[in-house]
Each structure stands twice: as C-alpha cells, then as structure tokens.
C-alpha cells in the first residue's frame, strides 16, 4: 500500500485522536497492520526526527508526535503480535547510576518505539546489574544516558562490568556531556547526538 497521507500527517502534527481513528478505520477496511506501520507510521516519526535534527521542530512537538504515534501503536501492536510479526530488534535503555535525568532518555525511548523497536526502559539511576539483566533477557543493544559530567564515568563502569561478565551487547551512549571521543575512549560502539541520531546509530550497530 502507499503512504496513508492522513495517518502520516496526523502523527507529524501530533493529532493523537485522529491517528487512533484513522488507523482503526484502515484496519477495519482490511489494511495490513505491518504495512500501516512500516509505510505510514514509522516514516512519519522518521520525518519528525529529521525535522528535529534540523531544528525545524522542538522537543514538545516531538513528544506530541510520539504520543500520537502511540495512539496508533496501541491498535497495531496486538495485530502484529497475532500475526507473529517481530519488532525490528530489542533494545534496553537507562540513565546511569547516580543520575536522575530522564527527559533525553524518554525521547530516545519514544523515537525507538516509533521506529519499530521493542524498547525496555530501565529508568534512571540504574545499577550495573540492571543492564546485565536486560542483556540476559535478550536486549541486543544497550543505550546509556547521562546528563552530568559527574555521572558520565558510570558509563565506563557499565561497559567494564558487562565485559567482565562475558557479555558483549552493542553499547550506545548519549547525553549532554557525552561525545564520540568519550564513546571511543570507553569502548562503546556508538554515540547518539540526539534522539533522532540515536535511532540511526541503533540501526547502524545492529546492521554491523
């Protein structure tokens, strides 16, 4: 099927009621849920992410769009599960130990869900063991978030801890003080500049 312009535009504009109504109408009319997701809904969130990266839309608009996307996913996801269609991958994300900031992390969660991933949100102030458990439960990629210079070193501790346990998940880091240089330094596989970039990095490391 072609892109459903109504759903695409409603997600971009954050019209959650419209998204719910339109997706339900399409499902009732016999549209395939995976096609709705892959050809209309995910491209809409991708477009929001691109506009965000170009500073054409801002965090509030991205949150509203993600909320609208969620209104469609509520309808789509049970249908996908019933058809045995798997998500694109399983990832886990958490703010590191000692850091309670979660605005950035939550945005990444929304963007990853909007991109078709199963996302396990580990929350904030995460001890190493929480990341370990997520990997043992099937997370292929771990995303670590930190806002503070003082909590950033906890990222290296997570990397070292998991390696010491013999676990080799792909690790992506992000947050205000974090840089690609720091990712290289601690042995992380990727650095996400913003929520949109984080999705691209997840796609890249999973393809590698």
């Amino acid at each position, binding site marked *: 099927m072609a892109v459903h312009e109504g759903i695409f535009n409603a997600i971009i504009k954050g019209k959650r009621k419209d998204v719910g109504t339109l997706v339900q109408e399409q499902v009732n009319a016999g549209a395939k849920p995976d096609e709705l997701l892959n050809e209309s809904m995910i491209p809409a969130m991708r477009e929001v992410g691109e506009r965000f990266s170009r500073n054409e839309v801002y965090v509030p608009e991205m949150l509203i769009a993600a909320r609208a996307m969620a209104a469609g996913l509520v309808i789509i996801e049970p249908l996908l599960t019933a058809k045995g269609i798997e998500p694109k991958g399983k990832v886990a994300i958490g703010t590191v130990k000692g*850091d309670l900031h979660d*605005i950035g992390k*939550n945005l990444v969660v929304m963007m990853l869900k909007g991109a078709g991933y199963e996302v396990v949100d580990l929350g904030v102030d995460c001890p190493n063991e929480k990341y370990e458990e997520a990997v043992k439960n099937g997370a292929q990629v771990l995303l670590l978030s930190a806002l503070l*210079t003082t909590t950033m070193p906890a990222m290296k501790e997570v990397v070292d801890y998991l390696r010491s346990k013999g676990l080799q998940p792909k690790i992506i880091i992000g947050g205000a003080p974090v840089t690609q240089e720091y990712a290289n330094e601690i042995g992380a596989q990727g650095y996400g500049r913003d929520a949109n970039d984080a999705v691209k990095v997840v796609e890249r490391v999973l393809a590698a």
Partner: protein
Amino acid sequence: MPFERIRGVTNDPTIQLMKTREPNFNNLLKILKNEKPDRPTIFEFAITGNYLKPNADPSVPECWDWFPSNPFLASAHKNLGYDFCCGMGSKFGFPTPKHEKGASVGLAHGGVVTDQKSLRSLDWKNPEDFDYTHLEKAILPDGMGMIVRSPGGVLEVLTELFGFEELCYQIADEPELIEETLEMIGTRMVKYFEICASIPQVGVLLHSDDWGFKSSTILSPSQLRELIIPWHKKIVEACHKQGKPVILHSCGKLDEVYEDIIALGYDAKHSFEDAAVQIESALERWGDRMPMLGGIDMDFLCRKSPEEIRARARKLLEMTADKGGYALGSGNSIPDYMPYENFQAMNRVALEW
C-alpha cells in the same frame, strides 16, 4: 571537596592576590553597560559553600543564609576577588514539588499540577509577605555591591509544577490552564523583582531561567515568545524602572532566541556551554550588543589542566580587552566537584592581569 584540601593552600599566592584585591562594584556596572572595566573582573552567580567557607574572614560568624547581605558570604566573595555578593532577596519561593535527594534531579515527571483544581490548591505565597529589610541594612566590605537573584525562573517553575512531559502535553491540550499557571507564577516573579529593585542598596538583579537543552531550546522559539518572553519583558521593565540592570542566566542552546534576549533589554547574558554555544562564538556574534558574563565551559573547567584553563581565560580577556562588556568566569557556577586548582587557575588570570 574537603575543606582541609583548601585550607592547605591558603598561603598560595592566588589566595593572597584575591585577598588584597580591593572590590569595586563599578567595574561590574561598567561591564553591564558594555563598557570596559577599570581592570579585568570576575563573575560567578553561585559558588559552592565548600569553597566559600575557608575563604571567609575567621572573625565573621559562620552563617549560611543565602542572602547577598550575609556578612559571612560577602566576606568570602571579597576574599575570592569578587566585587559583589550574589544571593536571594528573601525566603520567598514557589510551591514546586520536593524532589528526592540525589546528585541530580529529573524533571520529566513528578509535577503537582494536572488541572485547575490542583493548581489552585497549592500553597501559593506572595513575595510582599516576606522580609527584605536585611538588604537595606546590609553592611558590605567597602566597594562591594549586591546582586539579587530570583527564586528560579518563569519557565523553570512552570516546568517543575507540571513535569516536563506533562507540560508539553498540556500546552497542546489545555492552553488555558497553562495561561492561568503562568499568570500565578509571572505576577509573583514580577512583584519579587519590583520589591528587590526598589531597595537602594541592591545594585543588580539576576533572573535565572533555563531555556535550552544542549541541542535546542526547551520549548520551541514560538512557544517561548508566546508564553515565557512576555513575562521576562515585565521583569526587565520592573528592574529598569528602578534604574537597575538585570542579568539573564539561561542555559542551553539559545541561538534562535538571542535576538529576543537582546530585544528584551537584559543587561547581560550569563551561562554558556561549549556543546551549545561557545562563549567565544557568542562574543563574536552578539557581544557588540549584549555584555557576556563567565562562559568557560563547566566540563572544560573540570577536566582540563590548569595550564589549558589559563590559556583559554587569557584569550577571552584579550578578546574583550579593548571593548569591555565581559567578566571572566565559569559557564555556569562553581560546584564542589570542580577542582579547586582549576577554579583558581581561571580567576588568577584576571587577578594578575
């Protein structure tokens, strides 16, 4: 940072330099007019108590009221080389939620306003019901002035009351609730500034309101212009009506609203991060129309060597030596995790100029 470590260096030449420097508040006032101060001037709006305590005169009784009139804080600021003491005008504050204690605070959730009923049921205080007489009675070291800062900022308080994500949803869903909340915050904030600015002993005011993330403004520029900036305009007008300069402290990437900040009439901009807008770039782009304070990135100050910090501080002072309109300092504040030798290295460049 343990006090012992700092006490151990009290014979350091930097400390002696700081202590022998005569304060002159006029230097800051000249900077706020975008003029050249008589000598390089240093600026911070917040310094950890761990660095203030060992630098206060031993004869002044220890007191941790965060008022600029507090002789203990004023003594410490003087001995660190500052021309002013910065603090709160009173104990007035907003009914923002208490966060769990920790190294940091997350603001995505945890708000207390969900509707009109919850908004109105909060324990709203009025600034005029608090005591400001300590400002009038202040006896500061000769040459020093007082900077009075705000209890948070208009957007900061709004965000805390709703939680950031809920705020974003409510802006879209319930604009009237947002408007009413802003009215309750804004009228009180303006009144607070009116009271503080009217006190002759208060020299400068400072509105602390973070508007930006690392990569963009927190709200969109159009939302800032519609919801937040009108209240800032009233605050600036309230200060200027009393002939007092007012500084904006606002963190994050604000490129897109710098022209708005300049148009508002703020007398200086404080808070810069290399990942958002570097101070050197800000000075080049807007420095001719807006004085800038501080700006050496916090991460840079914490992780670079004293030599690298001195080099950057020297370049900043050289950049602004002819024109003025600049005071040397950190990009944000001096927390206790900043190595003391790095804090000293930065300030020593100005003190030895």
